[in-house]
């Protein structure tokens, strides 16, 4: 566990160093990229909570990201630009969606769970495609970023980045506490052996559903950040590709290892930028790297680092 605490400290310190580095290198684009990474790290963290610790492979987590993004757009158009209110609305809407779809999805297991979460996410996708008041298929551009305590300080990319990083840090701490709590133990136990949990007096369903709702609510925060970062929302945010990318990030970072999910988001997006600069066919190389990491270590890049540095898991 100490190794993970060290990894978390290093990763967050590296994040915090991005804006000064960007000013020094005179490359403001770095901050834009970093904000985008933070948004996806939040979503990957949320997914790892149920995928890694609960054994629930959701192939529809992009829907929650989209719900968060549209909360910003819809409230913004209604004149409510306060970030806190938008976050609250995103969390409430995503929780409600997770409660209903989770209660149904969790009646299935394995590949059926994957498929049914995908189906619900696609329903959400087409719902927003048909919402012509908010741009339909094309999406809509936001006139400005959200406000914070009545000030438009988030216009500044640096401040916006640090606020987003603060959200990621807070959610990371919360997720870490949840995993180590009584609730987290029941969640992990149900992944290990649901029949055994039943035989000592737990009904896993309730715990899994609550975890699904928490995860969905967390993922909606990613959408709030993403919408503000791009000042644009569209149904593409909840496309099934995005759900797939989130799973890739979690797997890259090592399943069931919260800081790994954050790291997985960093690796995936940095590789995307880096490989994309060299070739249009970056996805081919990205795929090869993914295959390599998965084969070399089931614990993702984090496990690979541990192995190379001779540390024990």
């Amino acid at each position, binding site marked *: 566990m100490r190794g993970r605490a060290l990894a978390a400290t290093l990763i967050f310190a590296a994040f915090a160093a991005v804006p000064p580095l960007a000013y020094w290198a005179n490359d403001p684009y770095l901050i834009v990229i970093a904000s985008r990474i933070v948004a996806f790290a939040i979503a990957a963290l949320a997914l790892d909570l149920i995928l890694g610790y609960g054994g629930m492979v959701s192939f529809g987590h992009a829907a929650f990201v989209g719900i968060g993004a549209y909360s910003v757009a819809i409230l913004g158009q209604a004149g409510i630009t306060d970030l806190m209110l938008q976050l609250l609305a995103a969390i409430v809407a995503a929780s409600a969606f997770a409660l209903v779809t989770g209660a149904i999805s969790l009646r299935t297991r394995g590949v059926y769970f994957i498929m049914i979460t995908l189906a619900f996410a696609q329903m959400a996708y087409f719902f927003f495609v048909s919402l012509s008041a908010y741009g339909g298929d094309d999406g809509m551009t936001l006139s400005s970023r959200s406000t914070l305590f009545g000030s438009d300080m988030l216009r500044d990319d640096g401040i916006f980045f640090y606020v987003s990083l603060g959200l990621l840090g807070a959610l990371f701490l919360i997720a870490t*506490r*949840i995993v*180590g*709590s*009584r*609730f*987290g*133990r*029941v969640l*992990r*136990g149900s992944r*290990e*052996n649901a*029949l*055994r*949990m*039943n*035989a*000592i*007096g*737990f*009904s896993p369903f309730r*715990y899994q559903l*609550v975890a699904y709702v928490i995860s969905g609510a967390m993922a909606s925060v990613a959408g709030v950040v993403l919408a503000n970062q791009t000042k644009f929302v569209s149904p593409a945010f909840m496309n099934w590709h995005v759900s797939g990318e989130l799973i890739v990030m979690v797997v890259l970072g090592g399943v069931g290892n919260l800081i790994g999910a954050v790291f997985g988001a960093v690796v995936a997006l940095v590789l995307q930028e880096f490989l994309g600069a060299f070739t249009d066919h970056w996805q081919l190389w990205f795929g090869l790297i993914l295959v390599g990491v998965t084969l070399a270590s089931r614990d993702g890049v984090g496990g690979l680092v541990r192995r190379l540095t001779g540390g024990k898991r």
Partner: protein
Amino acid sequence: MSLLVVDKLCKRYGALKVTDDLALSVEPGELHAIIGPNGAGKSTLIAQLSGEARCDSGSIRFDGEEISGLPMHRRVARGLSRSFQITSILPGFTVLENVATAVQAREGSSFSFLGRVADESALNDQAVTALGRVGLTDRAGTIAGSLSHGEKRQLELAIALATKPRLLLLDEPLAGTSGGEAERLVEVMRSLKGEVTTVLIEHDMDAVFRLADRVSVLVYGRIIATGSPDVVRADPQVRAAYLGEEA
């Protein structure tokens, strides 16, 4: 009053009657062994009693209350706990956490999200006590999946004990164990006698006749004889149906 009264219990899989109008009563404090040839329906009976398998008809009264409609986790909450024929533990958890999880199931709410459960001494202390009962204390920090087969059987017993059962259903606890391992488990079961009412299904006749207060013989889904070990051993019907094959 009997702690467990089973009456007219039935279960069929297709055309096969696995449990056929079965009647059984278990008295408080006794160790009641159920023996029978392979395919007699012993594991199905445990599954029905514990709530893993549904009953087609009949009644199961536990401490005077009908429980045949309750799901497994509610029966556990009432004090009906079981072990599995095929070892069922939480392999990625430590030995201590396996047992502490069972303690947690009956101690307070598990909808608690922020406190560190690994530091809850109330849970860990009881878990250590249960591990002491089965002789696994020095393995508390080991990952359960890496235990030997015999140790896993001990752990399974400790998990069941940690639920503070009023009736313990043990489904072939000695299955697959070596001589020394079996001896240790028999000692544990002997030490529980009188303290926890136990229904024991076991193939090891030696162990059964040493431990049991009463023995019931199950053949083709029906109990054909119940009584003290000596009486059952002498019953001609039992000898024909079961013991004769073994001898």
